[in-house]
């Protein structure tokens, strides 16, 4: 006799299960397929949700600690969007002397080496400090750049690597060369989300920052736009609640004499609300799909288990006649279901991770990969197998030996 002699214990149980699975390949295959699909769906859902959570963190990081932004209502219809100007920034600096304040203006220009027009942000020397940006190389624009109206630029890491531009090289904006004095260390394109459709708030992957005092060509910006401000960033002192500073700014700009239009205040909290709204939408939509897939898999499994129990009644009778208790019989069916779902969950997780990896690497899909993305669907599927097998297993355990053998 070969080595496969198992009379009792886990190995004997596994041998029994292997035997029964081999005898019903179609049935087992169908359950396997359903649970695999459910697991893939759950892996994808968790990956999307995980990515949104990552984004929520990035949003706060990108905005800066204790920082909020004020700007005209952007991307939404407003009857009277605010017309923010440089003198409003001066007013704010005077009213909030303890806060660090930076203002930006945006424009788009044709750029050498880039197919399309690119966005250029005109900034003061405070922006990097207010936003908490770190420089990968070089320095940020300083007071001298602004006073001397230097044609210097700071560019994003993405742009630097895309155009192979490094410190001391030039970026040519509408045929005017700007010398690169710094490369930002933050990934400017990754944190754009929700209200942050405003690229000025987040920067862009191809971000270029030049001094706000640099003379710009008339074609870049009409004269009326020269003093316009698209965004003001306010960094509250560490000991001060950001909400109280927001309230102070709101009070100031509500002054009727300023005749200020509609403003939007973007705080870390409001950004998180946006992210959470998206998270909830994905959770409900994706969760429903994943839940349906898994329940479908589970109910398929359950119906197959019921049929399995019915077909194996004589075998149940034999086992009972040989001394198996109802518990032994129930355990056999539950373990069998858990094994099928476990194997399906393993394959589903592997397929899910492969699909995610391809989606991320080939299509730059916003997906998160972590251990929980794989582990949670795996465990949920096994649990589901146990839950959905419980009832058929109980039915099997409830069949008396005499009744089972009568079916023989």
């Amino acid at each position, binding site marked *: *006799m070969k080595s496969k*002699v*198992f*009379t*009792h214990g886990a190995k*004997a149980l596994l041998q*029994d299960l292997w*035997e029964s699975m*081999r*005898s019903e390949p179609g049935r087992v295959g169908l359950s396997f397929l359903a649970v695999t699909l459910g697991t893939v769906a759950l892996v994808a859902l968790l990956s999307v949700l995980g990515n949104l959570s990552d984004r929520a963190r990035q949003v706060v990081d990108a905005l800066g600690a204790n920082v909020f932004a004020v700007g005209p209502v952007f991307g939404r219809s407003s009857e009277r969007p605010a017309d923010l100007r440089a003198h409003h920034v001066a007013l704010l600096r005077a009213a909030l002397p303890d806060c660090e304040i930076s203002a930006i203006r945006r424009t788009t220009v044709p750029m050498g080496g880039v197919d399309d027009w690119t966005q250029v942000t005109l900034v003061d020397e405070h922006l990097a400090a207010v936003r908490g940006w770190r420089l990968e190389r070089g320095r940020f624009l300083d007071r001298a750049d602004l006073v001397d109206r230097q044609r210097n630029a700071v560019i994003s890491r993405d742009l630097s690597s895309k155009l192979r531009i490094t410190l001391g090289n030039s970026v040519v904006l509408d045929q005017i060369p700007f010398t690169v004095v710094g490369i930002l260390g933050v990934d400017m394109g990754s944190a754009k989300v929700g209200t942050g459709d405003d690229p000025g708030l987040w920067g862009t992957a191809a971000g270029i920052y030049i001094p706000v005092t640099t003379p710009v060509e008339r074609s870049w910006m009409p004269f009326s736009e020269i003093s316009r401000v698209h965004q003001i960033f306010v960094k509250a002192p560490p000991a001060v609640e950001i909400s109280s500073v927001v309230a102070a700014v709101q009070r100031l700009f509500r002054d009727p004499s300023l005749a200020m239009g509609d403003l939007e205040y973007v705080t870390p909290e409001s950004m998180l609300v946006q992210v959470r709204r998206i998270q909830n939408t994905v959770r409900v939509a994706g969760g429903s799909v994943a839940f349906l897939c898994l329940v479908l898999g589970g109910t398929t499994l359950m119906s197959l288990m019921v049929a399995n129990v019915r077909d194996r009644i*004589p*075998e149940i*009778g*034999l*086992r*009972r*006649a*040989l*001394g*198996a*208790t*109802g518990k*032994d019989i129930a355990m056999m069916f539950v373990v069998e279901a858990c094994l099928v779902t476990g194997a399906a969950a393993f394959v589903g997780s592997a397929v899910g991770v492969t699909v995610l990896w391809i989606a991320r690497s080939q299509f730059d899909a916003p997906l998160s990969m972590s251990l929980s993305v794989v582990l949670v669907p795996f465990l949920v599927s096994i649990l589901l197998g146990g839950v959905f097998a419980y009832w058929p297993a109980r039915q099997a355990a409830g069949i*008396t*030996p*005499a009744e089972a*053998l*009568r079916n*023989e």
Partner: protein
Amino acid sequence: MAPFVLEMKDVWKSFSSPAGQVDVLRGVSLSVGVGEFVMVTGPSGSGKSTLLNLVALLDRPSRGRVVFDGVDVTGDDETLLSDLRKHKVGTVFQRFCLLPRRSALENVLFRFRYLEMAPAEALSRSRAALAEVGLEYAADRPARLLSAGEMQRVAIARAVALRPVLLVADEPTGNLDKAATLEVMKCLQRLNGEGLTILMVTHNEGLLPFASRHTVCGSGILTEVSGHMMMAGTCDVEKKD
């Protein structure tokens, strides 16, 4: 060991049906002594299988008392019944109840599935049981490829591999032709000769010569017909000792 392997006293078994309660066994009393070969015959629906289920501890009586190997098994203790079935009862079924994909030897080994026994010992006992029914040559053959007579002998080997106190056989020749029937009956007779107590249910009265006692089951009542080999003259299967 108790003087009787089995004692049933005034045992009733009733089932509910849409028409009301049906009494399948009505006050049956039966004692099976050590080493006896008791054959229960009777027409279909007479309660033979119900009686066999009670004897094999596969079911419980509605009323009355059943003592198996000195243990009162009338109560509701499922664990006790499972335990006795596991260790002391061997059962042979009309349709063999073999696992078709497993070999003859693996089917016999299955007898030990719910017992904690060293695999080597289980293997040796299984081989011995197969030898006892003359099937060593088919040990590695899948059960589905065996003849009906061989299948039933594998089932007998499985039932006796653990040396049960009582072998219960439910129409063991019901699906067999004459030659296979003879094979199986000779096998049972040999086991009985070695001291194994057997209770067999059959509708084939031609097999009575193999038994030491004959009891007829009719309308839920047992009637003792004969003592040792009283029916030898009516055997329709050639009996060779």
